[in-house]
């Protein structure tokens, strides 16, 4: 791609700021399509390619769930420290972000609940170990029993209850920390969440 020359960049100086404008360096990649019958649909093509990968999703989810379990096993052995806590959070956070794409929506919901506990608990050492373990066990169960016909119903109920228990704990633990309470209660920007 061609880049703008510095002389193409215009800077307007105001009292408190500068506004910098330049010709759009990416304008040459835009192409007007006149033909209404043009059937090329890059989004549909990408969705099809994603569907082609779907055979690998279960294996990927199993690996992600095992990474989460390993992170917590490490903490149970050596206790919470910053590095271990960060790895536990990243493992849960990756599941939260990936699970729905891989077709494991409820694993993502439970991982989201676990992320909230890790992020908003005033002291991770004081979080009841059962609360963390139940989240991790639920994710393992959802991933492993994904294909069973009644799994969706169980996963829905499991994720709903875990989220309720986690939120009750966080509300209680943060009762003297209004800024955290506000963050905990703030709505998600993701539609439908």
């Amino acid at each position, binding site marked *: *791609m061609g*880049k703008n*020359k*510095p*002389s193409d960049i*215009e*800077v*307007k*100086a*105001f*009292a*408190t*700021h*500068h*506004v*910098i*404008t*330049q010709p*759009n*360096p*990416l304008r*040459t*990649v*835009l*192409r*007007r*399509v006149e033909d*209404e019958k*043009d059937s*090329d649909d*890059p*989004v549909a*093509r*990408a*969705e*099809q*390619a*994603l569907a082609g*990968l779907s055979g690998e999703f279960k294996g*990927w989810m199993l*690996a992600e769930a095992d990474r989460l379990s390993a992170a917590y096993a490490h903490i149970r052995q050596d206790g919470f420290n910053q590095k271990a806590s*960060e790895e536990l959070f*990243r493992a849960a*956070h*990756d599941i*939260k*972000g*990936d*699970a*729905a*794409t*891989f077709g494991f929506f409820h694993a993502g919901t439970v991982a*989201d609940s676990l*992320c909230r506990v890790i992020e908003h608990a005033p002291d991770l050492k004081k979080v009841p170990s059962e609360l963390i373990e139940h989240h991790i066990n639920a994710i393992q169960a959802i991933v492993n029993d994904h294909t069973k016909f009644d799994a969706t119903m169980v996963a829905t109920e499991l994720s709903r209850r875990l989220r309720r228990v986690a939120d009750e704990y966080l509300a209680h633990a943060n009762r003297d920390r209004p800024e955290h309470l506000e*963050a905990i209660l*703030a709505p*998600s*920007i*993701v539609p439908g*969440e």
Partner: protein
Amino acid sequence: MFRIDFNKLRFLVCDDNPHMRRILRTLLHSFGAREVYEAEDGATALEMYTHYVPDIVITDWAMPIFDGLELAQMIRQPESKGNPYAPIIMLTGHSDKRRVTVARDAGVTEFLAKPISAKGLYQRILNVVANPRPFIKTKTYFGPDRRRNTSTAYIGPERRVGGEVEVLQQPSLLDKAKSSI
């Protein structure tokens, strides 16, 4: 209707999770992109950014050591040798409004909350290609204009103040080089 010639675009993807990198690579190649460079952490991404000069950066937020937010801040250095204007799309599992604000204030161009979809990614790319925003430089911020809409209603402390406009031409690279000798 507009289409993007993805085969003319160079992407840099930064995500520590190999599965997510594979998903992103698959989506971008399916859109038609040929040049997709991948980094698994912010530090490697910054090196690749300088070396490959990508047109668009897609980065995760949560990564060990050097995260996506720091990567955005490093790219948005107005005096840097690299291109500080490249669009940055922040792709993340964080989904609360506070995080969006923090990313915006680091100079991120677009924010895409996971779970990722082909449509969501395509729309963000189309937006940065077709509707680039001017850049704003203040004492504390350098990045794309954070105002998506024109509003005169805001009267808070961060209201930008107008005043006499003075148009400055950027010195050419040659002039810069001459003055440094």
